[in-house]
């Protein structure tokens, strides 16, 4: 016998247990981020989620999204210039926009593009570490919606897991470690984009579909997403089965 609330709680617990399990093993940070974005959609009822990291050059870059639709990724990336994600990153505070139409003047370019894609509400949650902000988690809803405190807390917990994932590798050389992990996450992202290109060309498919195939194959064969991507790019992996 289970109530909807109890079911939801179970799903939530299961998600965090899975994340904890991932964090102790040798994990692929992009795979983990992708899972986190998917959790935002399934646990929080968001319609899309994206994760952006500061590139340590003064800009934000998309590293993961709940789906790899090129236009959605572009909408996240647009926030390197303006939008709730950038404000969240700059101020290290949650940015809640329950109704985008009310804030047109604040981020004109972002709001008009988000509306074109049918989004009505946006929340951005900071990835904080000891006084430093390393990125932001971005949640999009198709209907106007203010996330209640309980949902925001879950969202922030997911953002905190993402932060831990970047920094889990303990080291006395903390500064070097942070730079290494941040740059490695961005680097893995580049590898995956290159592999998507190879697969799109070979299979005559869209890059978003290429990502879906890549991820399914990584899961099916228990390989790390970035290693699989490397194999696709350098030709050591036969892409026939992946594309069939």
């Amino acid at each position, binding site marked *: 016998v289970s109530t909807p609330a109890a079911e939801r709680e179970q799903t939530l617990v299961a998600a965090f247990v899975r994340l904890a399990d991932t964090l102790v093993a040798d994990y692929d940070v992009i795979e983990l981020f992708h899972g986190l974005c998917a959790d935002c959609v399934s646990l929080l009822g968001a319609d899309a989620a994206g994760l952006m990291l500061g590139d340590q050059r003064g800009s934000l870059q998309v590293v993961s999204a709940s789906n790899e639709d090129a236009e959605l990724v572009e909408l996240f990336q647009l926030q390197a210039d303006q939008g709730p994600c950038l404000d969240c990153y700059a101020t290290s505070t949650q940015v809640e926009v329950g109704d985008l139409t009310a804030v047109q003047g604040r981020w004109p370019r972002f709001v008009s593009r988000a509306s074109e894609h049918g989004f009505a509400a946006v929340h951005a949650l900071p990835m904080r570490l000891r006084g430093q902000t390393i990125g932001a988690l971005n949640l999009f809803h198709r209907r106007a919606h203010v996330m209640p405190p309980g949902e925001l807390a879950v969202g922030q917990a997911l953002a905190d897991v993402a932060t831990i994932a970047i920094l889990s590798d303990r080291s006395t050389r903390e500064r070097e470690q942070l730079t290494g992990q941040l740059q490695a996450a961005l680097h893995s992202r580049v590898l995956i984009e290159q592999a998507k290109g*190879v*697969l799109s060309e070979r299979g005559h498919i869209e890059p978003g579909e290429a990502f879906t195939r890549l991820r399914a194959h990584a899961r099916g064969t228990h390989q790390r997403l970035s290693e699989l991507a490397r194999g696709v*790019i350098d030709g050591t992996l036969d892409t026939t089965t992946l594309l069939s």
Partner: protein
Amino acid sequence: VVDQTRLSLALAAAVADNGPDGALAVCQACVAWLPMTGASITMMDGGQGQEPVCATDSGAARIDELQFSLGDGPCVEAFTTGRAVLVPDITDPAEGRWPVFAAAAADTGARGMFVFPLHVGAAKIGVLDCYRDAPGSLSDHDLSGALRAADAAIWTLLDRVDGRTTGEGDPNGSAADEQLDGSTLARAEVHQATGMLIAQAALDATTALALLRGVAFSAGRSIADVAGEVVARRLRLDPDGAWHTAGTEHDTDHVTDVPNEPMSRDEETPP
């Protein structure tokens, strides 16, 4: 703040120069506008191959030489792991990663060593190696500057890969500006296009990216712009190195011999 602006200008000029001295100009910018005593750039491949490209002084050259003769050190580590190696003080006994190299490097007067991999996904091109004669970590600002210098170094090395070291400069100027705010390396389509060229012409990632930069340069367009054409399947590369612009994959209507002619856009084909 002033130094960061000047650094950006110096880096933009180094990339726009598009000549054989671009890499050295990047190293000189690191010494001029970041707290570095010397800097060097080395091209490396996956195996044992390495080619010193430039060094600002004999100390920087000696540090490179040492690591490659020992086969160990921060450069080798940065290249192999793809991660920046930031050593506040190479003479610190707690820094035990490369004991032999550390002892030899200390003789050159180097204390802080900061090495950045020049990698773009699967394209592993080399390393930017900076050192200074005083110990200490880099500030956030200086680290940011050094990472941007590494981005610039990537573009100058790609020009060498592509063999276009004409020194004639960027024909339209704006393309280089666009590359240096880091935005080009953040564009998904640049990397997707690299992947598509790898598949189209059986290239490695470094060559594919160099050709993308090359064709953009020749056409006076930005890399992101040209990459968008590749991803939209309006521009493709044959295994023999010829670029095709086409409305659709099946409708190749003319071949452009880049870099002698700028490529033309085909707007007339229906989507």
